[in-house]
């Protein structure tokens, strides 16, 4: 009986090992290739986007007359949005990062993150169908509210610090937001009543908006939409400043507010500037709110009481109907390229400023 001659077990193992080694090496190469492919693809896309827009752009005579009101509209909407969002976002960031009780801060931050997640079309809906008609009759009340806001809040703060028992003050340190809520509600109610009372006054006629769908409404809603983004950036910047700085200043006799204004804000300034820049960039490109609540009239003025038409809203309105290759199409792409360039510039600037903040904080 012939003995089955098997290859020696040692060689078999070596062969299998070598085989396995080859498979492993191949897998390694594939993975590296796949990763490099993905990277190259993204690089190509990032470059392709502006190039594609550029290639299809056509400059026709008279383009500036068409584009100028759109650019003006975009800037008008973004300006009013920022004038609503900046005080809200910075105030909230300062409070959350520096004054809020830790438990309250843990509650507030996710709340702002959720506010950021609200789809803009929902905000646009509320702005177009409810806020616009409601506000058109109450611009005077809004003006009174905004004018009285700062003095009333400061006065109620002073009153609290002077008149309230120490024990209460100590118990509520870090929770003053709760105290400000009734003040705000009362103030809003008083402003509404005052607005009604002065409805026939001359000043009411001056600030009567020409249309319910105006820059004021857009500014308020767009401001609410971009506020959470700015809040997150500014809050991160302020929170990253070491606590010892504030404590040191307070130990030397500064109040909490003085420590903030003279020490923390200057250190965190690049982060705050970056937040403002990014907020402006987002407001420039935001489409749905402007599309729904601005009336979409191409105007060349800066008044908050008239409508506007922004580049982004114009794109959403006209691009589906434009025939590829036509002059109209070329002009639309030109406006898109303009918007793209503006946003890119603002983002790059913001990134640069944030890099500065990072270096500064690393130096501390």
């Amino acid at each position, binding site marked *: 009986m012939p003995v089955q001659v098997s290859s020696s077990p040692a060689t078999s193992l070596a062969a299998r090992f070598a085989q396995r080694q080859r498979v*492993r090496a191949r897998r390694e190469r594939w993975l*590296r290739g796949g*990763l490099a492919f*993905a*990277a190259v*693809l*993204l690089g190509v896309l*990032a470059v392709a*986007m502006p190039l594609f*827009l550029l290639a299809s752009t056509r400059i026709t005579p008279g383009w500036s007359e068409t584009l100028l009101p759109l650019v003006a509209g975009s800037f008008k909407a973004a300006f009013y949005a920022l004038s609503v969002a900046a*005080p809200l*976002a*910075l*105030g909230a960031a*300062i409070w959350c990062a520096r*004054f809020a009780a830790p438990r309250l801060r843990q509650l507030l931050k996710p709340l702002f993150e*959720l506010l950021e*997640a*609200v*789809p*803009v*079309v*929902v*905000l646009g809906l509320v702005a*177009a*169908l*409810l806020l616009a008609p409601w506000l058109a009759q109450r611009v005077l009340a809004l003006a009174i509210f905004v004018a009285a806001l*700062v003095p009333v*809040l*400061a006065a*109620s*703060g002073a009153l*609290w*610090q*002077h008149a309230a028992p120490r024990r209460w003050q100590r118990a509520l340190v870090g929770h*003053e*937001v709760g105290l*400000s809520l009734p003040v705000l*509600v009362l103030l809003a109610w008083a402003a509404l009543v005052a607005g009604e009372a002065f409805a026939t006054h001359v000043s009411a006629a001056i600030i009567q908006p020409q249309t319910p769908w105006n820059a004021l409404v857009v500014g308020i809603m767009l401001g609410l939409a971009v506020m959470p983004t700015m809040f997150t950036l500014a809050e991160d910047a302020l929170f990253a400043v070491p606590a010892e700085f504030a404590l040191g200043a307070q130990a030397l006799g500064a*109040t909490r*507010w003085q420590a903030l*204004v003279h020490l923390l804000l200057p250190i965190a300034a690049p982060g705050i500037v970056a937040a403002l820049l990014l907020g402006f960039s*987002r407001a*420039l*490109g935001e*489409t*749905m709110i402007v*599309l*729904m609540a601005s009336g979409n009239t191409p105007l060349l003025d800066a008044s908050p009481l008239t409508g506007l038409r922004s580049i*982004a809203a114009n*794109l959403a309105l006209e*691009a*589906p109907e434009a025939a*590829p290759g036509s002059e109209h199409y070329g002009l639309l*792409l030109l406006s*898109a390229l303009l918007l*793209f360039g503006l*946003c*890119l510039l603002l983002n790059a600037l913001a*990134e640069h400023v944030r890099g500065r903040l990072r270096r500064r904080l690393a130096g501390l």
Partner: protein
Amino acid sequence: MGLVLRLRRVTRRRDHGLWLAAGAVGLSLLALLVIVCVLLRQAALAFLPAPVAELRWHSNGIEQVLLAAVVEQDARELIVRASEWQRRGTGYQRIRRGDLVSLTWPADVMTWRLRDGRELHWRSAATSVHEAYAALLTQAPAGFSADPAGQVDIVAVNQLSTAGVVRIALQRAWLFVCSGPQAGAGVFPALVGTVVLVLLMSVLVMPLGVLLALWLHEYAGGRRSARILRAAMANLAGVPAVIYGLFGLVLFVDGIGGGLDALLAHKTPQWGGGGLLWSALTLALLTLPVVVVATEEGLGRVPDGLRQAALALGATRAETLWHVVLPVARPALLTALILAIARAAGEVAPLMLVGAVKYAPALPVDAEFPYLHLSRQFMHLGQSVYDLALTGSDAPRDTAQAYAAALLLLVVVVGLNAAAISVRNRLRERTRELST
């Protein structure tokens, strides 16, 4: 001593700038609260059964009687909606307050809501549905016909208890979510469109995004090319969504789609119009930075010790990634996916350019081969909100339904985000355990 006290008082006084910051937080919270309350209230209006009044008024000296629901009223006039015998949205009437003789709420009014969204009102003291239907036929104008099977509900609307009102409203809300626009206005096709779109987008974006993040974090490190790519990503994240839409329109729809049509010699554009695939690709581009950033953050949280241990045991880098790093970072991948979905689900502007339409005759998924129709136009929840709000034919009802659709969208998106936040927090705890 007195001087010190006075000084303290003065410095304390400078502290109330702090209240301005607190006021900013308060104002933001109030705004959020008001928006949510307003949405809830307006969406409820879409479903609550409206009480029906009997109106008597003079018109050109003739007294008229009408059973109608009061839609809007102010000091000068009423806008009412009477029975819609013919078509939805045809029963509206304007009545001047000066002409109005009486307005009463009779108890024996029946309201029949049909499947196509119409509402009929008539008076009948009948107890059974059949008797009530017979009474309706005697009161209906000539030529009226309706399929009794096409009912949603028949209720004695002025006699409903609170529980009854809630039950009817919930029923109608459920029907709104799971029926199509042929039946009055439902958002089912829009919901399906949104879900299919978002799933397709996830399938497209996740592999690419994860590969990119792996390359950036595990291979390229601080190389120059990685730095450039990171900068490109940061800039892509800041590009307005509508520009992505335009890019999709130019590149995918007109470029690739048009080219495909020319290649396949289609008479009518099939790929050269907006469609599901192009929209999903556009959204995938839009959410790529989100996925990459979230995944990279998760990879950064994987303790280096694990990687080094795997490599020391002789694993190749690919094996380390596949068997050690990715399993540990799995919650981060999940977070990235959820964040991408949340971002994509709420986005409307780019879809208006590349394929979402007001009314699509067919769903993008059905039982016919190839089951998923990539070139079909589709309906989208966000687009429905926009269309119902601004271009509805039956304004009072359509705007109410726009709020309902908006609320649905809000619930979906905020729910997804809340899930992402909670997953992220759990992930943090887990990696903390691993690194200790």
